[in-house]
């Protein structure tokens, strides 16, 4: 029997809100699935769409991008800029057929440990249901195989 599918999820988060929220989930001893790997950035403004593509190249089945609620940005308006970029990039991903459940965006504050844990729970479940991101994995596999001729 093959091992059950465990999604690989990469999260890009800002250090002031979502990272702190994830810490709070920890200090509150909340439990959530171990599928997410967090990459800490100073601000959502620092999160480039490239990061998402590289996470997929590394075999991620899902990506989470998260930061401070609008108005709460430690850097005043990094998240407002981020929101515009996400709007455009999200539209682009959807248009090119990256399913909606593969890339999630959220606002999680330093006080929302519960929201963090619940979100990781729900996206892990959603991606588990959707299964591995086969279409992308196929592209990755092709880079490692000899050309067809």
């Amino acid at each position, binding site marked *: 029997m093959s091992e059950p599918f465990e999604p690989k999820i990469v999260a890009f988060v800002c250090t002031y809100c979502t990272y702190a929220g994830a810490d709070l989930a*920890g200090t509150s001893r*909340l439990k959530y699935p171990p599928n997410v790997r967090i990459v800490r950035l100073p601000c959502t403004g*620092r999160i480039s769409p490239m990061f998402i593509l590289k*996470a997929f190249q590394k075999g991620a089945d899902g990506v989470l991008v998260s930061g401070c609620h609008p108005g709460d940005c430690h850097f005043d308006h*990094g998240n407002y800029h981020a929101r515009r970029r996400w709007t455009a990039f999200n539209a682009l991903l959807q248009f090119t057929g990256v399913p909606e459940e593969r890339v999630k965006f959220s606002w999680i*504050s*330093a006080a929302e440990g519960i929201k963090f844990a619940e979100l990781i729970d729900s996206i892990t479940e959603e991606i588990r249901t959707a299964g591995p991101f086969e279409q992308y994995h196929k592209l990755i596999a092709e880079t490692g195989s000899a050309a067809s001729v």
Partner: protein
Amino acid sequence: MAKIGVFVCHCGENIAAKVDCTKLVAAMEGHPGVAIAHEYKYFCSEPGQESIKKAVAEYGLTGVIVAACSPRMHEATFRTACAEAGLNPYLCEIANIREQCSWVHNDGEQATRKAIEITRSLVEKVKRNNELQPIEVPVTRRALVIGGGIAGIQAALDIANAGGEVVLVEREASLGGHMAQLSETFPTLDCSQCIMTPRMVEAARHPKIRLLTYSEIEKVEGFIGNFNVTVRQKARFVDMNLCTGCGECMQKCPAKKISGEFDCGLANRTAIYTPFAQAVPNKPVIDSEHCIFFKNGKCKACQRVCPTDAINFEMEDELVELEIGAIVVATGFQVQNTALYGEYGYGRYPDVLTGLQFERLASASGPTGGKITRPSDGKEPETIVFIQCAGSRDPSKGIAYCSKICCMYTAKHAMLYRHKNHDGNSRIFYMDIRAAGKGYDEFTRRAIEEDGAGYVRGRVSKLWQENGKLMVRGADTLLGRPVEVAADMVVLATAMVPQPDSKELGKTLGIGYDEYGFFNEAHLKLRPVETATAGIFLAGACQSPKDIPDSVAQASACASKVLALFSRDKLEREPVIAQNNEATCSGCWGCVLACPYNAIEKKDLTDRSGNLIRRVASVNAGLCQGCGTCVTFCRSNSIDLAGFTEKQIFAEVMGL
């Protein structure tokens, strides 16, 4: 060639109980570029840190990963240790395997696998870390204290007395805050105004304190040591320099039926007014919303009677620009909107009061001169029912927390009542009596034993009017039966809530707040007066419900933090700032627009004869705060962020 040291902390059992640290060490030992991997019970301890230092020297490490608790916890600790061992502190990174791994997962095997991935991706990152040098910034030795209640006044006086300059901003027309409204204070029952007003005067007269009343914070820019603050001084319509505070205007003002805020609506005031008799500064303001002249263009009675011509209806709001080094936020609290409690009849029955209204009734300077009488008919109440936790500890009403002061002030109210009405009968419905504090339990005991406070453990379910009485039905859970009390007055110990606009202020200041709007401290236990934003501190009830001693203590703590900051000429700032590659920059200025701090300037590139070749972006290291918004905007990848460079993040992701 990278020589990375990986130090896996057990954190006692906190990590080791879930993560197989030995397996993690073995995995890291096999990782390219890792010179050594060690595990230890507590790396944050003295011997733990020493062992890291020793390893740095012994193996000539070029980078250090400590796999332990959150970097928000001990990054500074371990970076300092590395620096002491001669390794640039920015070559040390923390892999968070506690808060984000061992504490949140049940399955040890999965947690271990995750810990390995977290750690190795940071090993990949740290291989690309660069040595960074701290940035020095000057410190403006002037503090801004927001809020002129007891906490703000205390902080201002402490700072000023130590020689620091202070700007004290209060949005009301007078200093004082809620403490000025109180009658007596627990547990000593000394008169609140007697201890408060001298401090108000002292603050106002202090040569180092600049007082800006009737003012609000408009804009805050900059960073620790170098804030630029804009304060809006609202138009008073009274020239402070000319006004002598004689009070003639208030006598003559025809708009007399304005519900007075200071007396919580129990007395009226005029349109030109001082909030209370002992106001500091004791000079009136015109409430343009109710002023007859402002409403229909005729009146000016005050202007006619003013002996010094101080009334100026043309006055406009003024914006005051301040250079500030540190900010103390002491904006206090409000009492909860009692409209939430329809079942308690507040607003419907005039004799159902809030605790704060009762303070005004009991106050010698209050509307009744300190006589406790019913607002409805002026009669002395024979029975008063006090309802505790009217709002607090009630998640169904949206407040889960304890307001902390209500148990004490309710006991105080019962005592004051008995002291003034010797035959008065008090019944107090309570959930628990929380009287932790010096002299507090003794105080409540005194209320019961000496002043006849009748405590009933239980909640009130219904309140109605019958035959001129307020009928209170509740449960006595100790006796296990319903109780009904016919009262003449009911006092609700309403919850302490943040100022209604605290979230907006939090945004202006760039500090965090919780779901209610109380400001967030940097660490509840270890950094309770700091915020996550360097240079901004919290005092008093704006952080959480507090009584006077706690507020004062925290205010003094703030002052000591501010003074510690002011004791230095220069501050060292994290060198996490943006850098631009001028060779590839095309000068589109998208970064300039995106930067929240105006930290990016346009720089001319010239040839040897000084001819302009082109213009490129240049980052002002003093202004840049390191958010990296510019980096993401830059299409050509010209701008990068030290500490979180493109190479580092790329490696970190590729290491996952």
